[in-house]
C-alpha cells in the first residue's frame, strides 16, 4: 500500500481532483454570499449540490484513476513484476481508493462547512453548520462506496477511459434505467439516497433493503474485478 500512497502523492490527478472539489465548495459559499439569502437552507442546499455532488465525482475519479493509471501508463506489469501477489495488490488498490475518497471528502467538506457558515453569518442567516454536518455524513457513506466500485470497474475495463465511461454510465445512466424496471428499485444511487434520507432522520425509509442493494452491487463488482485481475494474463 506504501507504493499506492506514493502514487497519490507524486502524481497530479489526485491533487487536481482535490483542487477542483475545493473550488466547487468555495463556489457554493460564494453563490450563497452573493445571493444574500437569510435562510440557512440556502447554504445547506448549496453545500449539498456543489460539495456533495462534487465529492461524489471526485471519489469516482480517484477510484477509477487508482486502478486505471496502471493501464494508462502500462505500469501494471511493472507493479506485478515487483510483487506478484495479485490479490494483495487488488486489496491495496481498493483500500487506497477508499482512503483517498475519505480524505477528499473530509478536506472538502471541512472547508465547505467553514466557508458556507461564514457566508451565512455575513448575510445574518441562522447557522447552517449543524445541517451541513448532517448532509456531509451522507458523503462519508456514499463516496467510499463509489470509489471502491470505481476502482473495481477500472480493473474490469482494464482502462482508465473505459473505466471512467463505464462508471459514469453505471451511476448516471444505468441507475435511472433500472428504476424503470417493474422489480423494485435496485439501483445503487437510489439505495444510497435512501441511506442519506435515513441519516437526515426522515422516517419510514427502507434502510435494510437499501443496505442489501448496496452490498449486492459492491460484492458483485468487486468479486468480478478480483476474478478478472487475479486469474487472467497481464498485458
Amino acid at each position, binding site marked *: 500500500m*506504501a*507504493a499506492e500512497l*506514493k*502514487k497519490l502523492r*507524486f*502524481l*497530479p*490527478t489526485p491533487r487536481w481532483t482535490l483542487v477542483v472539489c475545493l473550488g466547487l465548495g468555495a463556489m457554493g459559499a460564494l453563490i450563497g454570499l452573493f445571493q444574500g439569502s437569510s435562510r440557512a437552507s440556502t447554504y445547506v442546499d448549496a453545500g449539498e449540490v456543489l460539495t456533495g455532488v462534487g465529492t461524489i465525482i471526485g471519489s469516482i475519479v480517484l477510484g477509477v484513476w487508482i486502478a486505471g*493509471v496502471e493501464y494508462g*501508463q*502500462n*505500469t501494471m*506489469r*511493472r*507493479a*506485478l*513484476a*515487483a*510483487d*506478484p*501477489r495479485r490479490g494483495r495488490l487488488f486489496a491495496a488498490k481498493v483500500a487506497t481508493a477508499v482512503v483517498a475518497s475519505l480524505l477528499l471528502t473530509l478536506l472538502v467538506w471541512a472547508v465547505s462547512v467553514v466557508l458556507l457558515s461564514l457566508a451565512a453569518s455575513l448575510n445574518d442567516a441562522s447557522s447552517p453548520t449543524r445541517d451541513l454536518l448532517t448532509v456531509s455524513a451522507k458523503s462519508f457513506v456514499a463516496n467510499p462506496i463509489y470509489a471502491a466500485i470505481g476502482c473495481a470497474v477500472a480493473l474490469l475495463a482494464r482502462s482508465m477511459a473505459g473505466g471512467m465511461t463505464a462508471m459514469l454510465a453505471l451511476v448516471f445512466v444505468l441507475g435511472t434505467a433500472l428504476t424503470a424496471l417493474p422489480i423494485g428499485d435496485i439501483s445503487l444511487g437510489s439505495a444510497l439516497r435512501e441511506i442519506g434520507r435515513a441519516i437526515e432522520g426522515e422516517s419510514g425509509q427502507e434502510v435494510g433493503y437499501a443496505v442489501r442493494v448496496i452490498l449486492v452491487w459492491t460484492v458483485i463488482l468487486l468479486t468480478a474485478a478480483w476474478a478478472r485481475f487475479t486469474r487472467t*494474463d*497481464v498485458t
Partner: protein
Amino acid sequence: MAALAVYEGLVKRFGEIAAVEGLTFEVPEGTVFGLLGPNGAGKTTAIRVLLGLAAPSAGATWLMGASPGTPEFTSAVRSVGSLIEGPALYGRATARQNMDIEASALGLRQSSSEIAGLLALVGLADRADTKAATFSLGMKQRLGLALALLGKPHLVVLDEPTNGLDPAGIVEIRELIKRLPEHGTSALVSSHLLGEVELMCDRAAIVDRGRMVAEGTISDLISRQGGTGFKVVFEPEDTERAVALLGSRGLIAKGSGGRLTVTGAGVEGAHISRPLAQAGIYVSELTRTEATLEDVFLSLTGPGSDGR
C-alpha cells in the same frame, strides 16, 4: 552453476495461435544470457510467463527454483529486476519519484542513496528531478534499466534493453550489462540486435516461431555455423561441379553464380583451391571469413529455415 531461470517445455497459446511451443533452456547463475529471435518469435511472451504475468498453456517455468503461484515465487520475483516491452514509467512523476515508487513496491526501506547511485550509473543523475514524460526514448530506457537494477537483484530480465539508445548509449548500456555478473547480478537479455548479444552475452538461445532452434555459448553457436570459412569466386558455369567436388571432401559449399561460401572443420584455403584447380576450376578470388552470430541467426531463422 545453479540455474536462476528454467524453462521446461513451455507452451503458450493465444486461442489457436501458439506464441511459444516447447521452449526448454536454463539461465545459469553468473552469466549474461541472450534470448534471440526475430519479431514475433515469442521472446516477450516467454519472459512474461517466467515472471508470472501470464499463465503457461503447458510446460513450466521456474524462477530461482520457484514456480509461479507458490509462496516462494513472491520472494523469487522480488530478487529479480525486469524491463519488459519498453520502460513502464509514471510519466507525470520524476525519475527519482519513479524509483521511489518502485522501491516501495519492492518493500525496500533505505533506498535514497541507492536511487541516486543507480540514476548516476545509467547517466540520469542530472535529470533525476525531471518528469519522465519529458524524457527521450533512450532516457526512458535508461530509467527503465535503473528501475530493474533497484534492490541489487540476483537476476535482471531485460527485453530489448538498448531500444531507442544512440550508438554511444548502446555501448554504455552494453558494457553495464556485461559487467553485471561481477556485481552478483545475472542477466537474461532478449534482443534481435545480434551484434549486441554477441558482444554482451556468454550464452544464448535462439527462438523462432515459438520454438528454440539453438542454444549454447556464443562461440559454440558460431562454430556450429562453421566458424572460419572462405568466400570463393570462379567461373559461374563451374558452380555445380565445384559444390559437388568440395562436398565430396567433407566441406559445405553454399552459393550460386560462381560465388560460394565454403565452411568445414579445420578448413584451409589450400583444401579448396587445390582440388578445384586439379579439376580445372580456376579460382579468381579466395577470401577467409569469420562466421558471426548473425550468420547463425539467419541460417536458423531466415527464409528457408524450418524453424527448428
